[in-house]
């Protein structure tokens, strides 16, 4: 690092698996001479990336998990409540699944009981109203009332003191800068690291974990000195949904895809088809499964989708390769393929998976309900399609980020309202009837806004170093107003 002092950077993550989206950034920072201390309070659930472990300027340390004072539990309750109220805003009206999850988290926070529900009986019809049906009655306060309630909770947050336990930890570590991610988990405990870093005048920066994080989870309860986002859409989310001052947001692109961008196929088409028992002469349609939260029990739908796809004459003989979500592989291990040109390709990794690269690379088109891997497909310029599935409506239209990738909202994913339209779109895509330039253009905006050929990692590294400068410390604005 030329002309600047090496920094001591403390990166707090809730789980070491979170590092997979920042591996390249941490290595680059360490290579530039900065000392990186990765702090988590849990034992690693999976081994941290070997490259990080092996680097002489990267260390893994244990941090306190929570505040350790009388606010430890109540602050979680307060934040969980505020996170739920966030989802009463009109822009989240269709986000029933997100709101329900936030309410469940709130109830659990207050009851300490996974099975507890918020239950009432209608005094008139005696109907049992449960969870969000009850919570939504807070809308009875009206727009202004809900806004005022959020303001009140924000003020409470601001009044709650910094944790001395976390301050002691930070004092002992003496970092020049603190990074915190994913930060916006519902009822976030990590907000206390931000609070304590600010109390000690240590610059604290939040690199957003993924594309959906600012719209699907909780609030940024305590404003960090800097927020690093992937793209302009996330900048808008940070400002409008989380009250981050615009000048505190740095747009860098998404470093997590740099490695994927740099990959080349490990197999030839023939080798790939042979591995999966596919016909190398036929096009491959890839189905990317979504997470359990978005599309729980997707196996049955995929079976039906194959039947429907096969009804199109041009798709009757194409190969179909199903790629389960990395966290949902079990149901697919016993999946019986309906015909010889259908196969299942189990993932090998959560990030920069060469098998995903080869799968997409050799495909003619990609289909998925709502999953990040659609972005990888876009990186490789493949046409990506989705279909609105009534039973998964909450995981599709019920999330805000689903619309971000759709063509009708400036994205690159073709959406079909039913199977008939989907077959037509898929057949066209497989035959090569799509615009690769439009796909590339969106991917550039979304993942590499500085230029499609410019990796995001160096931009995030620069942003982190920039936020360590004194000018960014102690920003006065801490109260987030979330309701538009």
């Amino acid at each position, binding site marked *: 690092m030329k002309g600047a002092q090496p920094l001591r950077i403390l990166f707090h993550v809730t789980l070491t698996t979170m590092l997979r989206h920042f591996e390249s950034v941490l290595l680059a920072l360490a290579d530039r001479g900065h000392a990186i201390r990765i702090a988590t309070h849990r034992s690693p659930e999976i081994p941290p990336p070997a490259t990080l472990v092996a680097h002489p300027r990267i260390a893994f340390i244990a941090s306190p998990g929570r505040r350790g004072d*009388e*606010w430890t*539990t*109540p602050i979680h*309750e*307060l934040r969980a409540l505020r996170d739920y109220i966030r989802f009463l805003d009109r822009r989240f009206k269709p986000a029933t699944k997100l709101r329900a999850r936030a309410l469940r988290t709130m*109830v659990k926070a*207050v*009851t*300490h*009981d996974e099975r*507890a*529900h*918020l*239950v*009432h*009986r*209608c*005094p*008139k*019809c005696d*109907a049992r*109203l449960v969870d969000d*049906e*009850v919570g*939504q*009655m807070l*809308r*009875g*306060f*009206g727009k*202004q*009332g809900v806004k*005022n*309630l959020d*303001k*009140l909770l924000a*003020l*409470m947050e*601001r*009044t*709650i*003191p910094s944790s001395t336990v976390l301050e002691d930890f930070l004092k002992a570590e003496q970092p020049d800068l603190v990074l915190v991610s994913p930060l916006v988990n519902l009822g976030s405990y990590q907000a206390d690291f931000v609070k304590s870093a600010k109390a000690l005048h240590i610059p604290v920066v939040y690199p957003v974990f993924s594309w959906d994080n600012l719209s699907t989870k909780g609030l940024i309860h305590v404003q960090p000195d800097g927020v690093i986002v992937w793209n302009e859409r996330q900048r808008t989310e940070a400002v409008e949904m989380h009250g981050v001052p615009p000048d505190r947001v740095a747009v860098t692109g998404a470093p997590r895809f740099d490695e994927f961008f740099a990959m080349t196929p490990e197999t030839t088409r023939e080798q790939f088809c042979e591995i999966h028992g596919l016909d190398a002469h036929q096009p491959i349609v890839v189905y990317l499964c979504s997470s359990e939260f978005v599309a729980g029990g997707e196996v049955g739908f995929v079976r039906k989708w194959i039947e429907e796809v096969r009804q199109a004459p041009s798709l009757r003989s194409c190969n179909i390769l199903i790629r389960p979500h990395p966290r949902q592989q079990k149901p697919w291990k016993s999946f019986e393929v309906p015909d010889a040109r259908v196969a299942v390709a189990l993932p090998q990794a959560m990030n920069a998976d060469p098998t995903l690269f080869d799968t997409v690379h050799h495909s003619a088109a990609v289909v998925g309900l709502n999953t990040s891997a659609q972005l990888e497909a876009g990186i490789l310029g493949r046409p990506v399609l989705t279909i609105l599935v009534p039973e998964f409506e909450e995981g599709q239209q019920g999330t805000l980020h689903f619309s971000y990738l759709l063509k009708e909202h400036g994205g690159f994913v073709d959406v079909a309202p039913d199977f008939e339209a989907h077959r037509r779109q898929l057949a066209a895509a497989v035959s090569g009837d799509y615009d690769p330039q439009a796909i590339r253009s969106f991917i550039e905006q979304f993942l590499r806004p500085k230029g499609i050929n410019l990796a995001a990692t160096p931009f995030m590294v620069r942003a982190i170093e920039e936020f360590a400068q004194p000018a960014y410390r102690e920003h006065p604005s801490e109260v987030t107003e979330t309701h538009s």
Partner: protein
Amino acid sequence: MRILFQLPRTNVLRHFDSVVLALADGGHDVTIATPGKSNDFPLPQEVTSHPRIATRVCPEAREDAWKDAATDFRTLVDCGHYLESPFFEAEKLRSRAFRAVAQAMTGDKTRHLTARCPTCNTKFVDGDFGDLRPALGDAAAERLHNLARLIEDSIPSDPGRERFLQEESPDVVLVSPLVRFGSEQSDWVKSAKALGIPVGFPVFSWDNLTTKGVIHVAPDRVFVWNAVQKREATEYYGIPSEKIVITGAPRFDSFMALRPSVDRDAYCQSLNLDPAAPIVTYLCSSEFVAGHEVAFVEQWIAEIRNDSRLSSCNVIVRPHPRSVRQWSEVDLARHGRVGLSLSRVLNADQSLYDALYHSAAVVGLNTSAQIEAGILGKPVLTLLAPGFEKGQRGTLHFRYLLREEGGFVELANDLDEHKTHLARAVGGGYDVAEIRSAVERFIRPQGWDRPATPILANAITDMAPEKPSAVRRWLHSATRAGR
């Protein structure tokens, strides 16, 4: 000794004017601090003319980020209070608490809280939400209590109030009624405590610890009327019993000192009543308790007239002082031997004294004037009136006066039973000593012949610490240096 008495409105002083005068006569300087509302009642002349009593306009709202927010937060906490027993069962109070939340959170005094049942589409309004009692369990309720306590503790003392108190430099601060939805007076308690000034809370009335929310910030001393209120303060608000002083109710001292202003014949003549027949007085309740009571009273009179045991009685209807307008066009004369005794005086009212004094029995749904009737040893009766249940059993204080709860008011479950009670009472079938004993326990627990005013005045002066705290010493020296 310098005593600062902070009140939200001047009319609150009506329950404490005797105490303020006693303190001033005892050589203490008393400042009455109110926000100075344009429609405030004028203070009594004997108060304003006393050389040791001053009045001052004090801040009403906080001047920091918690302006409005502290009130909103406390209103939410107050409402939560009514989701727990025994307050949950107080349906009327619970409804009012929800309405208060809707108004506080929206900042709109006309706002109602509304939503629809997702199943039957029934519209819920305000109090209906109270029926939707959350089923999160006791442990969760305890956690929410703890959260609320921590937040209240985190709300800083208001700099504006601190400045005012520093300027006034009192030895003791008093606040009342303190318990109101969203209580902004809690900030006076908080600021007085922050400055090390002892702060006392004389409870305004018999229902105040159960009807309008909670004590958000505990004062150093709570002055209550009786053992019932002491139990309320400890059980509901966690006030340590050693910080509670039972003083009796000074507001009745002046009433107890009254004598009838007219003899029976003259009184009956003034209201066109038959001096040879007994008088039954009906005491109307507040609008909160009984809403529009006229139709019920007329029905009640008709029932009396149709009962051979009571048909010859005179009836006096005494509207609630705040609901006189309801009665402006009501013609009671058609019932015969019915007089209307109108008065807007809220305390120590001679016309009330006269009405009760000349009565054989008194009836009311749920009103403080029942206590005045008890003071005069009259049999007091009530009945569960259809349509008014929420203002009766839907409040906690209703039962405090009932005989079955150790009080002196005879409760009937319906009109027939009530008429039997009333006929017996009018015929002299009651025990004056029993009434008097219950009233004594309730408003003069130190003894019938011991007025509460000097007891409360002494208890207030006892609050001043013999040796001022370090903060107080600093405050005194800083104030003197600034003068």
